[in-house]
Each structure stands twice: as structure tokens, then as C-alpha cells.
């Protein structure tokens, strides 16, 4: 999963798509994941980091991850 190259994100969770002018606010968890994605870390590695750092089980994380991915697609933020 790759974010479009021109998508701007901030540590505070602000996301800006300069192609459409759309902006979004991510919660701290989503902002942290987006930072990892921008750094080129694989999905598996990001999930591992989250599982180690937070009190969440793998199946819950997978469900949340799918939901998160849908939102990113709807926001036109992912490379096709």
C-alpha cells in the first residue's frame, strides 16, 4: 500500500491532497501509521509495531486496518 507521492502529512495528523485540495484529520493512531507508510515500512512490519506497542489483538487490528484502507481509498490518497 503506497500513499500518492504528493500527499502531505503532518505529525499532528493533518493530511492534504494537493491534486484535489481535499484535507483530512487523522487521529493519533492513524497519523502514526501514515508516518510509517510514508517511510516505506511494509504493512506486515507496521502491524507488528502496532501489536507490540498497543493493547490490541491481531484480528481486531486486521479489521481496523481494512476499514482504514477503505477510508484512504475513498479519500483518493492511495496509488492505484
Amino acid at each position, binding site marked *: 500500500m503506497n500513499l500518492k507521492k504528493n500527499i*502531505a502529512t503532518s505529525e499532528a495528523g493533518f493530511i492534504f491532497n494537493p491534486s*484535489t485540495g481535499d484535507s483530512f484529520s487523522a487521529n493519533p493512531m492513524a497519523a502514526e501509521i501514515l508516518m510509517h507508510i510514508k517511510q516505506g515500512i511494509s504493512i506486515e512490519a507496521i502491524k507488528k509495531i502496532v501489536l507490540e506497542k498497543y493493547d490490541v489483538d491481531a484480528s481486531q487490528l486486521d479489521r481496523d486496518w481494512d476499514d482504514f484502507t477503505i477510508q484512504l481509498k475513498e479519500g483518493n490518497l492511495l496509488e492505484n
Partner: protein
Amino acid sequence: MDSTKPLVIAVTGLNAIDSPGPGVAVIRALRDGFGSNIRIIGLSYETLEPGIYLHDVVDKTYQIPYPSAGIDALSSRLQYIHAKENLQLLIPNFDAELYNFIKLGPTLKNMGISTFLPTMEQFEARDKINLYQFGQKHGLSVPEDRAIYSVHDLYTCAEKLGYPLVVKGKFYDAIVAYTMEQAQKAFHKLSAKWGFPIIVQQFISGTEINVAVLGDGNGNAISIIPMRKLYITDKGKAWAGITLEDDTLIELAKTFVAATKWKGGCELEIMRTATGQPFIMEINPRFPAWIYLTAASGQNQPAALAKMALGETLEPFTTYTSGKIFIRYAWDHITDISEFQQISGLGEL
């Protein structure tokens, strides 16, 4: 040009109201571009155009006759103003006045006043009435339309174009009609206000984007700045907007300028569909009211136009900042009856 003397530029469109003329924004950009060595002469039509009273924006204002008074009346008034101010450049900013100013171009040139305007052919080709054929000719996506003179023709339009229909006035205003009754009401309202024909256009749903463009008259786009409307007034005007980074829009504008050899500023009104296809809804033959955003994002279009009008050859800008936002605001400017009296009575302030 004597560098010690200020550059004298006349500008119209001082009506910075809820449906604003571009004049004040054009002047702001010119002042950014040329610094203090500039003198701005405002040309107004009505006595309550706010720019008349903004003395840090406009140095001196003269009223000019309405376009309907004709070319001779305008020429005569400009000769009077020129004798007093020694104008070097004139930038008109209203659609309705452009016909006269384009026609007057050679006369103004003989007087020593430069302009940088499209030709009459370019001006008429992008007219609402001709826009669909224009798009067909140049391979640009333009919604299908019909120019009609009778309310009965709406039935054919509805059959061919489907609902909703966009019913548009000859010069301004557009109403989206979802039924025949609404279309007929819009037809009567707009024909009473703007005359005939009425343009009925296929409805395109999507995101409203405007593109400010400056062409050099030789097919080169010197500047292209796309802007998405973030806040739209009930008159359909952008009250806030943001610059976009989008190669599709840039290429569309380049194609337009190359095809027409457009000379001067213009605004492409685009509707981008959910699938990303940009449709040209209208082409305004002058700078838009949000033109200062071009200066704020790194491509000062009014200053570039002024330089080209005065004989400089410019290379196209290559970069600008996306994510620059303008937010328009209202401000109660205070003046005195003596100023109102002067512009009303003497026609200058």
C-alpha cells in the same frame, strides 16, 4: 521608459462586492510586482464601487461611460483622462466592456496606451454561445448545449440533453432546472435580465475548479494556476479557494492557449467529474476576482501581463506553490460624503 517616473496603469473592475470585479485584486498584484514606483488610475462605472474610496489601492479614479454608450464616448473620455494622467497601460476587467476596449486597441496604441487583450476572433470564439463548437474544434471537453430563443425549444433541449438542465443567461447567471416547470421559469427570468439567446447546457456533476491563465498571444501559456473553490457563495462565486497541483489541468490550459494563441488573462471554469475528467464549463476572457492568489502562489499574472504589454518577452513560469488558500472577507470601509459628492458630481476622485 523613464525609471524615475511612476508607471501609470489604468484598471477597471473596482467593484469589490459580493460578486466582485477583479480590479482591486489586479491592482494588489501590480503593486506587489512593481513596488512603489507605480500610479494606479481607477476607471469606474458606478459611484459606490469600493475601490474608488480605497486610496492606498487606487491613486485616482475617473468614471467612464457604460459600455452601452459606445466606443466613441469611451474614446473621448479616455482621451480626457490620458491628457491628465499620461496612461501607459490599460487593463480592463469586465466581460461586458471588453468588446469596446478590443475595438479601441489601435486607437489606444496611437495615443501611447498599451493593452494586452485577446483579438476579437479569440474573444468571440470562447463566447458561451460558441463554446461547444469551440470545444469540438479543438478537442476540448465541453458539455453539449443549445442556444434557444423560444421557451418551447426547452422541450427539445430536455429530450436531447436530459435533466437536470443548466439554463444560462447570455452574459451571466446560471440556474439548474430539474423539471420543465423550473426550466421555463429560469428561461423567463434570465431572458428578462440578459436578453437572448438563452443557453441550455448539459448538466455535469463534479468538483468546481477554476484555472487562471495568461497567454502571450503566440500560443505559449506564461502562467497557469488551478484553484479549487472551497467556499461558494449563493451567486456561485468562490469566497475561499486553494491552489492545486494537477498536471491534467495544466495540460488542458496549455492546449487551450496553444489552440487559440490566447493573448492576455483568462479564466477556465472547469467541472471535474468523479472519474477525473475535466469539462470546460465557461471561459472568461479576463482575469478572475481571485487573481491575487496567482501572485501569492508564485506566479504574479497581472505583473507579468503588464511587462508583456510594455514590450518584454517572458518565459513561462515553471513552479508555483500548491496549497495556498485565499479567504475573502468583508470590511466596512468608512468614507465621507465629500468624497461621494466628488465622484458623483465631478466624475473623478
